[in-house]
C-alpha cells in the first residue's frame, strides 16, 4: 500500500498547477519528432512530451511523467490508448479530479 507518488490527471490548462510534479495526461498525437511528441491535450492545447514514445504510436497516448512547465511533460511511461478515445469525458474528469474531488485522487 503506497500512495506516496500519485500522478495528477491533467489537461493542458491544469498542467501549470503541477509543474515539477508527477502528472498524467492523454494527448492526441499531432506529430512525432526525435525524442519528443507534439500533441493536443484534451482541452485542445498544444503540449510537447519529451521521452521515447512507443513504436508504433496510436492516435491517442497516455503519458505519465514530470511536468516541466505549463506546456511540456518529461514522460517516463507511455501507453497507447488507441485510435478512438472520448476526450471530452476525460477532460471533464480532469476538472473534477483537480477540483471538488481532488481528495479521492491526490
Amino acid at each position, binding site marked *: 500500500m503506497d500512495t506516496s507518488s500519485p500522478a495528477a*490527471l491533467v489537461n493542458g490548462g491544469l498542467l501549470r498547477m503541477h509543474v515539477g510534479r508527477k502528472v498524467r495526461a492523454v494527448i492526441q498525437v499531432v506529430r512525432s519528432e526525435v525524442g519528443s511528441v507534439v500533441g493536443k491535450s484534451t482541452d485542445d492545447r498544444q503540449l510537447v512530451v519529451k521521452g521515447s514514445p512507443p513504436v508504433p504510436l496510436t492516435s491517442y497516448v497516455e503519458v505519465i511523467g514530470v511536468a516541466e512547465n505549463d506546456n511540456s511533460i518529461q514522460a517516463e*511511461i507511455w501507453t497507447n*490508448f488507441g485510435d478512438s478515445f472520448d476526450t471530452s469525458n476525460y477532460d471533464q474528469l480532469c476538472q473534477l479530479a483537480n477540483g471538488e474531488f481532488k481528495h*479521492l485522487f491526490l
Partner: protein
Amino acid sequence: MYSSSQFDATSAFSGGGFMPSQPSQFANSTPSPARSRDTQGLISVTVKQISEASQSGDEKSNFVIEGVDVTNVTVVGMVFNKNVRSSDVRFHLDDGTGRVECIRWVTENLDTREMDALEDGTYVRVNGHLQSFQGKKQLSAFSLRPVTNFDEVTCHFIECIHFHLHSKLQSQGGALSQPQMDSSLSTPVRGASTGIQPALVNDFSVQYSADGLKGFDKMVLNYLQQPSNM
C-alpha cells in the same frame, strides 16, 4: 418526513449499477437484517480511497469507505512488479493515485494463462476482495482482465466519484435528488427536499451536464426546484 406511501429509494436505486443499498441510513426505515457479503455489489474505488479505508469493528472484518461497508471492489490501473509463484501470482496495481498489492490465487492452468497476458505496464481491471494482512491492505483478486478500450479508464474514475457522492448524500440522511431517476417511477418525489439545499441540486446539474438532462429528468429537477419543495 416520509409517509408510508413514500417510494422506496433503496429499491428504486438498487436496480441499476452496483450501488450498495443502505436502508438503515434512511429516516424511518425498519432495521435491516444482517448484510451478507452476497448482497454487496462491486464498488469502484481509487487506491487512495482504499488506503484511507478503516476497518469496521464487527466480526465480518469489512472495510469502511465513505461510511459504507465495503468488501468487494473494482480498480483499474497498471500492473507492476509481477511476481509469479507456485500457488499465486502477485503484483502491484498502480492507478495513478497509489499502489496496492494484489494477489491472484492460482489453482489451474486456466488461471495462469489469464495472468500470462498481464505483463508489467499493462492496464487491467481487477475485481477483488479487500483484505488486511500484517497491517497492510491487499486485494485478493477473483477476476482480472486487460483493458482494451481506454474509455474504461475514464469511466472507472467517474464511477469512483459517483460512489463518493452517493455515499456522502446517503449519510446526510436526505433522499437522493439525482437527475438519473429510475424511469419506472410514475409519481414525482414528494417530501424529498428535507435536508437538501439548492446548492446540492445545482452540483448535480453541473456534473451531469455533459450527458444532457433528458426530458423526464429535467421535469423532475424542475419540480424539485419549485419553492414549495424547498
